[in-house]
């Protein structure tokens, strides 16, 4: 329930700004599916038409609900953190996690629009690159699966992928190594519902990502490279 509400709030924020159009094109493989919470399929439908005035009202209402539920979710984060093992000691956490803080700061920024494709072989037509100052807004036609390419132009790097809550995706590539637990809610901006995943990439390449049907459409995405 909390995720549903929070995601709706995020969507409201997201609609405050018009996405910037871009063209975008990268390569492929299979394995390592990773999943993030998907409870809020419903509020996906509320996505587009939220107006500024309504947003304020929505915020008030949802802040209340959010507050009520915040405590419920805390343990979830804790549990996930406990599962993470290696990541717990490596990733900067709390106030020192500048990547997460930066991603949160970007949630309401003007997004770069990327039109994802619905045919896997065309994934290179929708490109996303790590960027410390870009929030992407991905959208696609229909309500089925969608695909895009994450281009990683570096070796042995860790990327932090912050996606809007409710988005489920998987790398169609065996060479993207998941470091963090699944579905971690970004502790820096829980109200935005942004989730936080950490991946290790051993070699530079384009990685095809499949966004599962039922994910919010559009959704926001931030990719930060550590180091």
């Amino acid at each position, binding site marked *: 329930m909390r995720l549903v509400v929070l995601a709706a709030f995020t969507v409201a924020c997201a609609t405050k700004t018009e996405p910037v159009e871009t*063209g*975008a*094109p990268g390569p*492929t493989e299979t394995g390592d599916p990773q999943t993030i919470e998907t409870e809020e399929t419903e509020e996906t439908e509320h996505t587009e038409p939220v107006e500024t005035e309504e947003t304020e009202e929505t915020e008030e209402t949802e802040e209340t609900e959010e507050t009520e539920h915040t405590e419920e979710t805390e343990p979830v984060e804790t549990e996930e953190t406990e599962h993470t093992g290696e990541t717990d000691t490596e990733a900067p956490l709390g106030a020192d996690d500048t990547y997460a803080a930066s991603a949160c700061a970007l949630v309401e920024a003007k997004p770069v629009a990327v*039109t994802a494709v619905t045919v896997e072989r*065309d994934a290179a037509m929708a490109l996303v*690159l790590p960027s410390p100052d870009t929030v992407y807004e991905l959208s696609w036609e229909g309500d089925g699966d969608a695909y895009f390419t994450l281009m990683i132009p570096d*070796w*042995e790097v860790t990327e932090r992928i912050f996606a809007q809550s409710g988005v489920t995706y998987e790398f169609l590539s065996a060479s993207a190594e998941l470091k963090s637990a699944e579905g971690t809610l970004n502790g820096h901006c829980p109200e935005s519902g942004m989730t936080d995943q950490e991946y290790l990439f051993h070699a530079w390449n384009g990685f095809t990502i499949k966004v599962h049907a039922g994910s919010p459409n559009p959704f926001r995405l931030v990719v930060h490279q550590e180091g």
Partner: protein
Amino acid sequence: MRRVVAALALSACRPADPPDPGYVWDLPAHFPVPAVPASNPMTTEKVTLGRFLFYDFKLSIDGRRSCGICHEPAKGFTDGFAVAVGVENVAHDRNTPSTTNVAYRSPLTWRDPDLWSLEEQLLVPLLGDDPIVEMGVGGHEDEVLARLRSQGPYPDLFADAFPDDDDPVTIERIAMAIAAFERTVNTGASPFDQHLLGDDGAMSDGAKRGAERFEALGCGQCHGGLFFDRPIEGDGTVAGASGYFNTGLYDVDGMGGYPPNDQGLVEVTGDPADTGRFRTPSLRNVAATTPYMHDGTTPTLSDVLTDYARGGRLVASGAYPGDGAGNPYKDPRITGFVLSDADRADLLLFFDALTDWASLEDPRFEDPWCADDDPRHDCVPPIDL
């Protein structure tokens, strides 16, 4: 087939630039001596310098790019990305072309018919910012030159390569040396080449059938000559330069439109009929250079065949949907064909037979900064930025 290809290869050089007789080329037996600009004659010293520079990260402003990182030997001297990515992590509009056998390529790049000189072309990724900053040296030339004057083996290498210069460490000399090295990266020992030279067992039966199918389908009309990158003229000879063709990859508006950021030759000529026309790439080493087409949006060779078989690509979704088969600017010869599973398999075997896998590990072309057992990412020369 062998006779035709060998004869056509002789027309690959640009007449204005004669072969360089003063350099001992180590070429495949059936390759002609490449044309070399008189202003930049080949020398062993220059090639050596060029090889070090080609793989040196000091040639990018932030030490994160080298020529060789985007033209990686193991990937057929391409980068594996759909489109190139510059130092600022901004995507280029087009796919990184291979630099193998580039000495025989003319003109260069995907859509500029006036760019024939490697020395000139090198300045685009090195210094340019259009369409993106690639290596980022533009505006920082002095900084990069200072690195080369003071670091690594360069003072000696430059002095040896340009013995008449008081100060040979210049952008112009860098371009000349890298161009000289690139002219030596010639790969011609693929199974197809061995077959061409008389080894009937070098190509599998399937690859031979694929070669026949390739010709029968008319693919060789654009991918002709020894390097499979020249159109065939009406009299059956190979054209002196690569052609530019619209292959029906897009039709975003039903009127022949291509994505606005990358419309092909029309951006140079202004002629609407040139919309979507890009230079025909060589098919040598093609199995190693995925992904394909000018913007890298076709992931496999099988997908390429699918698109040609239907007479153009259908883009069903995304930012640029449309049916390229209906593109009014499409080359009229791309009409589609029936492709059986057996044909597809044979053609893919032929493409593999065009690939000289061994040459992609040829020590002459390797990164000189790498020890033999270093993983790829450790092949970085010391840099003091």
